[in-house]
């Protein structure tokens, strides 16, 4: 094999390695972002169970379904977190969601539902999960939060999810207690 031919084939081989490597390097950031958004790893817990998540101790104290009328139900979730380092949580976004066995997901109802207002008015005094509620945390005292969801009465296998951006892809998953 002549030196020029050897150089040609070496270049071709280098290209076969360099091209996929360049694609992998340039796409890595996008892959990490995609994974953070789409791949989730649940930390399962039951209502009333204390569980460590994202550097705090969490307890979902209530996950109850209320009749909403006209084929509709309202789910009230109350939960609390004992945060050892409130400053570290002050600016951490928190996502709350409710999902069912069909893969549908609901976001909390803004300002709470009238049914909750009537039956659990104290729940409306609680803030949603997020920076402002964490900022009020005082050493060792639990931060109490609540969220309500409007769902079809037929929805089943409900699961509450609490996800802190700093802890993704891990999130807290709590199933609706079965009667």
């Amino acid at each position: 094999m002549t030196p020029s031919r050897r150089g040609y084939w070496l270049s071709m081989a280098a290209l076969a390695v360099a091209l996929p490597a360049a694609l992998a390097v340039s796409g890595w950031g996008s892959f990490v972002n995609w994974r953070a958004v789409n791949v989730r790893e649940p930390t399962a817990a039951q209502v009333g169970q204390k569980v460590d998540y994202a550097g705090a101790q969490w307890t979902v104290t209530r996950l109850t379904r209320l009749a909403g009328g006209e084929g509709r139900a309202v789910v009230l979730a109350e939960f609390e977190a004992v945060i050892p380092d409130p400053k570290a949580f002050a600016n951490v976004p928190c996502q709350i969601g409710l999902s069912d066995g069909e893969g549908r997901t609901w976001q909390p109802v803004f300002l709470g539902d009238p049914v909750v207002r009537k039956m659990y008015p104290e729940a409306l005094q609680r803030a949603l999960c997020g920076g402002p509620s964490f900022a009020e945390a005082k050493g060792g005292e639990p931060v109490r939060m609540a969220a309500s969801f409007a769902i079809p009465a037929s929805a089943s296998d409900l699961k509450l999810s609490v996800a802190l951006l700093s802890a993704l892809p891990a999130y807290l998953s709590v199933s609706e207690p079965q009667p």
Partner: protein
Amino acid sequence: MIGTLRTALALLFAAAVLYGLQHTRPRYSQITSPIVTTGGMNERVQTGNFALSLDSVRVARALDVETFGKTKAYTTPGVWVVVEGTAEARHETLSLTSADWISTAGVRYALTDRIPATIEMLPGDVNQPGLPRRALLVFEMPQEAVAGGSVAVTRSKLSPLDDEVQIAVDADTDRTEPKITLRRNNEGFPWTVLPQR
């Protein structure tokens, strides 16, 4: 001689192909435009993310808006088109923030921003999966834009390749009303279009 001719022909051919590609290349906005699902009135038109049906369209020369006991009149050199329907999210909570009227000439009219926010139109609604919700759309446009027009609804104008529903609206311009009233209800159903049909 033949080789030179062949090369020249190949170059000409390549130039013609490149010219064709240049002039048929779709614009970026076309490549990323919404994926449209079409339908008609009283038909549930479903996309991957949401479903929409329209069941009422009314055309009027003037519009009164009644909120908290006060009435304000809205005049227009054209007409008001008030469309009602039902929207439903399919898999996740979402809002349908963009709604346009598309005339047969292809002109798009955005929802009016003249009426007060106390009359909540479709973009302000939060749609929950499995819970159909009544939707209100109010447009202001020239009379000639009404006939044959359609309503286009999407989650956002800014999301590339998002779902869009386009519903052909049978608006009868011969039945243009002198005036209709939009009343905000304090209880129960959020609004009423008067006079009731």
